[in-house]
């Protein structure tokens, strides 16, 4: 049961990994209070997402981090934002690694978590 005291405390800070152990393009999976969370370093920015696909529960944070296709005015395909789109390895649903938003615009969304770096250590708030 959630009490008012719990709500006031808010999310707790959890150690993930040392900053030096998560290079650009890398990711790490951590378990926080029973939840698996993927922490990503994308071009120096850190993002944390639930490793539970909003679609069918697949291990989305183990999926490819890639770009996505858009179209120009003639309908020809372009490939954009390489390395910023997370694709679930079960069904290929694409999520924005920064916001957790489903690229195809459904009501589904991956929960995101705040990440911070203190004294060379990465922490996630969950």
């Amino acid at each position: 049961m959630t009490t008012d005291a719990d709500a006031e405390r808010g999310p707790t800070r959890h150690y993930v990994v040392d900053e030096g152990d998560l290079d650009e393009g890398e990711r790490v999976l951590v378990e926080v209070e029973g939840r698996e969370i993927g922490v990503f370093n994308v071009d120096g920015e850190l993002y944390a997402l639930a490793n539970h696909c909003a679609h069918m529960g697949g291990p989305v944070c183990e999926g490819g981090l890639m770009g996505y296709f858009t179209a120009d005015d003639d309908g020809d395909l372009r490939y954009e934002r390489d390395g910023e789109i997370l694709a679930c390895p079960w069904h290929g649903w694409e999520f924005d690694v920064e916001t957790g938003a489903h690229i195809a615009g459904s009501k589904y969304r991956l929960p995101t978590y705040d990440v911070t770096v203190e004294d060379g250590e990465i922490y996630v708030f969950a």
Partner: protein
Amino acid sequence: MAAQTAVRSVEDLDTTVVDADFHLTEGIEEIRPYVDGPMRKMLVGASAYSGGVDPYPSSGDLHPSVVTGRTRVFNEEKLETPADVREGMDLLGTDRVSLDPGIQLALGMVHHDQVAAALATAYNEYLLDTFLDEDDDLYGSAVVAPQRPDLAVEEIDDRAGESSVAAVFLPSGGVNPPLGDRRYDPIYEACERADLPLLLHNVAGGAMTSFPIQHQAFGRHMPTHVVAHPMQHMVNLSHMMTTGVPERFPDLRLVFQEAGLGWVPYLLNRLDYEFYGQRQDAPVLERPPSEYVDEQWYFTSQPVEGMDKPGYVAQTIRLMGEDNLMFASDYPHHDFDHADDLLRQLTGEFDREAIEAIFGGTATEVYRFR
């Protein structure tokens, strides 16, 4: 009323949970060693060329998630052992599968009829040797080639005694002529004799390319009439959506006529769901397909199906969206609908405003009456 216990996992059901379509991932590489008889020379051959032949046709359409490497399940992780099957069953929480094939899905379109039959036999040997004989609790479907009903019957008779064979699998995508032709009757008879169900499973691209040929074999109006209207709308609506017609022409009001009701919710839900996973094929769209349809695409009612099934018509109209439906009679064609007949289906199911919209309000806005 007895209280219903909420069941959250199939594992809590008091039944053997059966998965009625679980696929292996074999390609020609796995099957070639099992090809026996004269067709071995055709497929395995002495020359590098014949040895490299892949006899399974493809219409060439690319599955965007698979070819771009988004999905790892299926395209990177082949099922090679009973343990691999068990892994999938554990993931899904099922107790029993009847294994269906991988590339044999395209077997019904293999051009060489005797090769097709030899591939079916080879696949069944592979299935038994690799999976069913290795794990007593696994079941599978024996594949037959529709190109040679006589050899398919032999195959069914041969496999009927295997306790691990739970069904017969007929790759029905692109089959020609379609399966009502009397040449297939011996296959149906053999399944009856063996007490095995006959599984019909299509393969998308190949089936599409076969439709005009299959029409020629229909030889009657009924299947043509029932299938053609909704299918042609499905083809056009899906294609218009994929290329982004509603984005290019946001003010265009489209009306899809004379195909009944039930195909509409089916197609829109399928398109939305496909878009959620394969958005790469329709990146012009900013929103799920059904949202565009809700706003500016319409459907006429006739021929309303299911009038004799209580609740069907009202339920289906709710699923398709009553705001997008316009009454139409099709008068004086042979299957015209009477306005009062549809009205009786809607009275008491919808409020007066919604009914008046279906019977004129929506059409008055969509058509340019002035």
